């Protein structure tokens, strides 16, 4: 399935003294199988944008098209659509409420009206996806788990609905490096193994460098750049001007270039930079 935003605009508190424009004429398209990253500063409208994509917020003007059909059209069953477009909010662990992990994960499928057997299968599947052992965790209270585990339970709660499109708002915020790494590899597996189309909001450029196939850069409610990570991260000056970082590897690459080394400007992954630097070093030694 594809999602398309057409001239999307959203204002909060329309018609009062507190009126703010959160999204200003945003248009883009996400095709099946992509892993799109949205980056932007706090308050750039990222979270507002993702809530439009499954109909939780209605645009002030503009449209969201799901497979070419208007999401806010009159005859669209938005509840059913929401289950195809999974949305994981920021700090999703704060929405856990059930007595046991398994029951909490079953909340989504239950709302879909599935049979008890199917729900059970889904819960096993979802816990497997997020690397939580069913035997060990299914009957434990979600409130006695660690932060990283709670986050994985919450993500499993969305995955149990088997969405074909998954939107994640800052999935690694507030986690330690190990927990972060774990979440990222889960997302990687979902994208490549389960062929889920992904949209991830983050301001961790290193997360983006690792996962995204395409990036959308937002600033003050507008899209300021779109392209592959290679294209985006090569524009170090543009990124700094809107208060964003580039991945560590891209910054190092830029610093080396400024020092006069002959190095391509568009390296942004640690492994490719390492390979390039090693090849330079070997060349220098062999001379």
């Amino acid at each position, binding site marked *: 399935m594809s999602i398309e935003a057409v001239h999307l605009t959203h204002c909060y508190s329309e018609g009062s003294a507190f009126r703010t424009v959160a999204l200003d004429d945003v248009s883009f398209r996400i095709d099946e199988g992509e892993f799109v990253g949205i980056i932007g500063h706090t308050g750039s409208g990222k979270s507002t944008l993702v809530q439009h994509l*499954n109909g939780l917020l209605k645009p002030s003007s503009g449209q969201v098209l799901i497979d070419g059909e208007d999401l806010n059209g009159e005859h669209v069953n938005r509840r059913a659509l929401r289950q195809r477009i999974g949305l994981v909010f920021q700090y999703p662990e704060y*929405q856990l409420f059930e007595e046991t992990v398994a029951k909490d994960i079953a*909340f989504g499928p239950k709302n879909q009206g599935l049979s008890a057997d199917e729900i059970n299968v889904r819960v096993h599947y979802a816990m497997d996806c997020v690397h939580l052992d069913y035997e060990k965790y299914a009957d434990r209270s979600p409130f006695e788990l660690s932060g990283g585990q709670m986050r994985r339970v919450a993500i499993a709660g969305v995955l149990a609905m088997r969405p074909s499109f998954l939107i994640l708002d800052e999935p690694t915020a507030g986690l330690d490096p190990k927990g972060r790494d774990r979440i990222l590899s889960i997302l990687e597996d979902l994208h490549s193994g389960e062929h889920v189309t992904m949209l991830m909001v983050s301001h961790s450029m290193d997360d983006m460098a690792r996962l995204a196939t395409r990036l959308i850069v937002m600033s003050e409610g507008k899209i300021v750049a779109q392209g592959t990570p290679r294209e985006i991260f090569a524009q170090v000056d543009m990124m700094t001007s809107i208060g964003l970082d580039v991945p560590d590897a891209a910054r190092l690459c830029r610093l080396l270039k400024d020092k006069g080394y002959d190095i391509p400007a568009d390296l942004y992954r640690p492994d490719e930079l390492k390979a390039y630097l090693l090849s330079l070093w070997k060349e220098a030694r062999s001379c």
Partner: protein
Amino acid sequence: MLSNITMGQYYPVDSKVHRLDPRIKLILTIVFIVAVFLAKTFVGYVILFLFVYGVSRLANVPFKMLLRGLKPLRLILILTFLLNLFFTTGETVWVEFWIIKITKEGFLQALFYSLRLAFLVVGTSLLTLTTSPVALSDGIEMLLSPLKKIHFPAHELAMMMTIALRFIPTLLEETDKIMKAQMARGADFESGNLVSRAKAMVPLLVPLFVSAFRRAGDLAMAMESRCYHGGEGRTRLRVLKLTRNDGIACLVMLLLLALIILEKTLL
């Protein structure tokens, strides 16, 4: 979704009225209420209306915002009007029909009582519209502080009020977020009968309580780590000082009160 609920309804603009001392504003509001009760004729109400309108202009608050405060009370206003209209006995009968009897006196009294109620609400909402919640609880604390002599916890009460007011928007935002998150998982808050709707609230209320307690714990910890220990010996960031404008405001209010009283005795 919940963003259209305005609690405390402070209208954040700058004006002479906004800058008045909250203590003075509190006292003046009480005087205004007294004036409303003293007004006995329509001329009195015209004076009151001119006063309220003038203050709202001076405060840069649209008069529409004031009237909006009446909206939640419209049922009570209508009920007051109807009850007085039908159950007041009088001389001049206008309409008589079955057991219903509408008299001139009844009509006038109905109009009077509902206007009085409206003025009370509009007058007090002038206070909340022009005074930030923090300033308001500061003012209340200062006004109640003489009661500290009889061990009345004025500071603690004001602090509790400040914190409660401060957290209303936060909790509303949180509710909105959790609601959306559960809706993304297919929860349905809008349809179904009473029982199923009450059940649908569980996925909303449990996380909300968990987060409220977590926030309370965090806040207590943060206050303690900054050595907060109650009101004793505490100095203020914003020291309330009376200015000339406060004096003028008091004079204007006294004038209003005098006008109302005189008008009653003269006419």
